């Protein structure tokens, strides 16, 4: 179909193109990616569905305001690299965001086509251009402005830090990224499983950032190895951006939570993703042997889905999601819930755990649960679950994974007391500039918002980069006037 001659009516007649995926019965036996990606033909066909609105509301739906209409038009015309270049003007990590962004709540939610039909598959198209660039080896490296002589420290190499580093480097600033772990990428590496985000893609995107001259230093825990003050005063950084992500996992505070076999989703996922425990003993780090066992994840977010689908792939016979509200209230992406259901995950909804039960060796054997029913809406607007009298039952399980969110890491607060934090220990920032109460120190991502999404963290990183650049330019101007 010729992209220049197609009528709106013809565009509307094209159905949303389905991305090929691994069959559920096969994929529960491996850690390879679930979705296989659009072919160029499918991508072009999908791109033709976009009616090129005069006022593309989808752009406002995107936290980093990708020029969605323009990149889709380029795909429709067959200029895939041009499309990649267009996306990368606003988002450096298209192959990652195309996979993990909740598009159904952002750009695709407001897509005009979506009012009567299925919205344009913006996320799948974004992923396509990112993958096309990588797979064909035709790298698009952004232009770098002449050096400003300014040096900025980015603390944390997750989505917030990487997007901030990218923008600052493009503007000609010297950027050094500090990472506490031995691997770069933050939650993209330790949290999100291979079957949802192949680590090779993250490494590839990191290589792109290295080519831009960004320096990376692993094994540096800011707050311990070096403090924010030392970075600014002794190491000559003009500004710092804190994007250290979420911290210590929350537990439920019910009896038996410290039994052997009860662990946080962060621990389970870190063992498997970062430390490659699925490859034990080739890899030194073990993980609870799930083969033939019953595993339950408590929680209903994306991390909960990641954890239980990982347990299933490690051979769990019964893999349960135990969630206190109903499916409609689950914070996980719909797509993730559907994938989990197809993979044989058993959903125990409207159920809360009361107590973990162990044997004489303190090894978990089961969990005492209670059924709930939905009552009046609570402060979050979701209907509040209330216990059903006499509905207690025992669910035999061998491993329990707690996935109810994270608090904030206390290290920066403890060692940089002049950075103001909230009651929940998140860092307080000016929402327009992301600057903290400490001058020239900015923050963004989960350390500011509490647990949120990759793209929101990236948006915060970009906003901070713009503000840092403006501030440094302002200082330079003042110095020039003197």
């Amino acid at each position, binding site marked *: 179909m010729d992209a220049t001659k197609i009528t709106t009516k013809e565009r509307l007649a094209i159905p949303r193109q389905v991305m090929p995926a691994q069959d559920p019965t096969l994929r529960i036996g491996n850690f390879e990616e679930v979705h296989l990606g659009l072919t160029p033909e499918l991508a072009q066909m999908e791109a033709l569905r976009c009616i090129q609105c005069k006022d593309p509301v989808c752009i406002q739906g995107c936290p980093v305001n990708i020029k969605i209409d323009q990149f889709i038009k380029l795909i429709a015309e067959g200029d895939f690299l041009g499309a990649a270049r267009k996306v990368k003007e606003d988002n450096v990590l298209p192959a990652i965001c195309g996979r993990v962004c909740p598009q159904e709540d952002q750009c695709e939610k407001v897509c005009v086509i979506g009012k009567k039909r299925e919205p344009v598959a913006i996320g799948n198209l974004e992923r396509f251009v990112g993958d096309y660039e990588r797979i064909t080896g035709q790298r698009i490296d952004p232009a770098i402005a002449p050096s400003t002589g300014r040096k900025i420290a980015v603390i944390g190499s997750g989505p917030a830090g990487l997007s901030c580093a990218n923008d600052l480097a493009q503007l000609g600033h010297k950027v050094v990224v500090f990472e*506490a*772990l*031995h691997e770069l990428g933050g939650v993209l590496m*330790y949290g999100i499983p291979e079957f949802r985000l192949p680590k090779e893609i993250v490494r590839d995107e990191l290589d792109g950032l290295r080519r831009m001259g960004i320096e990376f230093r*692993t*094994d*540096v*825990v800011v707050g*311990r*190895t*070096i403090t924010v003050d030392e970075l600014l005063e002794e190491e000559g950084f003009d500004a710092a951006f804190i994007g250290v992500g*979420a*911290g*210590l*996992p929350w*537990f439920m505070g019910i009896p038996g*939570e*410290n*039994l*052997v*076999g009860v*662990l*946080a989703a*962060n*621990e389970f996922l*870190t*063992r498997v993703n*970062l*430390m*490659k425990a699925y*490859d*034990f*003993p*080739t*890899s*030194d*780090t*073990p993980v*609870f*042997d799930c083969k033939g066992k019953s595993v339950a994840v408590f929680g209903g977010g994306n991390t909960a889905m990641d954890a239980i689908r990982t347990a299933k792939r490690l051979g769990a016979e019964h893999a349960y999601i135990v969630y206190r509200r109903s499916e409609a209230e689950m914070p996980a992406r719909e797509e993730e819930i559907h994938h989990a259901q197809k993979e044989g995950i058993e959903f125990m909804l409207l159920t809360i755990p009361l107590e973990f039960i162990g044997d004489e*060796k*303190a090894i978990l054997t089961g969990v005492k649960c209670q059924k709930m029913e939905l009552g009046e809406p609570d402060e979050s607007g979701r209907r509040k679950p209330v216990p059903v009298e006499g509905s207690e039952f025992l669910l035999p399980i061998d491993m329990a994974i707690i996935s109810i969110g994270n608090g904030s*890491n*206390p*290290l920066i607060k403890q060692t940089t007391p002049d950075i103001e934090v909230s009651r929940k220990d998140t860092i307080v920032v000016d929402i327009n500039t992301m600057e903290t109460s400490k001058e020239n120190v900015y923050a963004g991502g989960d350390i500011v918002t509490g647990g949120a999404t990759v793209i929101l963290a990236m948006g915060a990183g970009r906003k901070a980069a713009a503000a840092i650049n403006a501030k440094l330019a302002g200082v330079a101007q003042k110095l020039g006037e003197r």
Partner: protein
Amino acid sequence: MYRIVSAIFLAENIKKFEIEAPRIAKKRKAGQFVMLRLALNGERFPLTIADSDPEKGTITIIAQGAGKSTRALNRLEAGDAIADVVGPLGSPSHIENFGTAVSIGGGVGTAIAYPTAAALKAAGNYVITINGARTKELVILENEMKAVSDEAYITTDDGSYGFNGFVTQKLQEIIDSGRKIDFVLAIGPIPMMKAVAEVTRPFGIKTVVSLNPIMIDGTGMCGGCRVTVGNEIKFACVDGPEFDAHQVDFKNLADRNRIYLHEEKESDEAFAHKCRMTSKA
């Protein structure tokens, strides 16, 4: 990569390393630890920093070969390198002039107690050290401990050197002699720390232990190192590793440390097999 400057055995299976890590050397305080990862595919494991030299930019760690990683570490020599060394982690020991302080080290725990004993001495305490080992050959840091002690005792389980018996018996003897003890630090195997806590509890002597739960990241992210202290969940990597001995649930710690026994054995056996293969070749 972090270069090993020197590596010497202090006793059978217990080796002391000086490692180049300038940032950590500059920052480290008594009671803090580092996470190590020896090589690609290696696990992350914690070791307390025994000493540091900020001028030279080195830290000292002492490791007893127990599992695969510590045994692999103990095969490294000066000039070799370690893939990752991260720190200093954990909250530093709380040091003040308590008056009379007793520092107790059991086995390789002596290496962990040493920097804190030195800091207690520097803060003006009258320092009594009791260092226990199974037998004479396993006694470590005897001279170093003496140098920071007003009174130094060695105990051996078999009586081959020093006091014949456990560290707790020596501690009980000191307490029973009627001397006023203001602070006790105990670091060693879980049963030893638990026993020390029970000796001091009736006398209300402030007692601190350094806990060794399983850790993965060590920076406050995974929650694997949680321990029960005073019926509350605490994270050893950021809230500890030192805690009030009278509040610690030692049974819970011992139970949780057993979780990967089977896997550890498998890993050990694979490593031992590989070592035999290499030595044959």
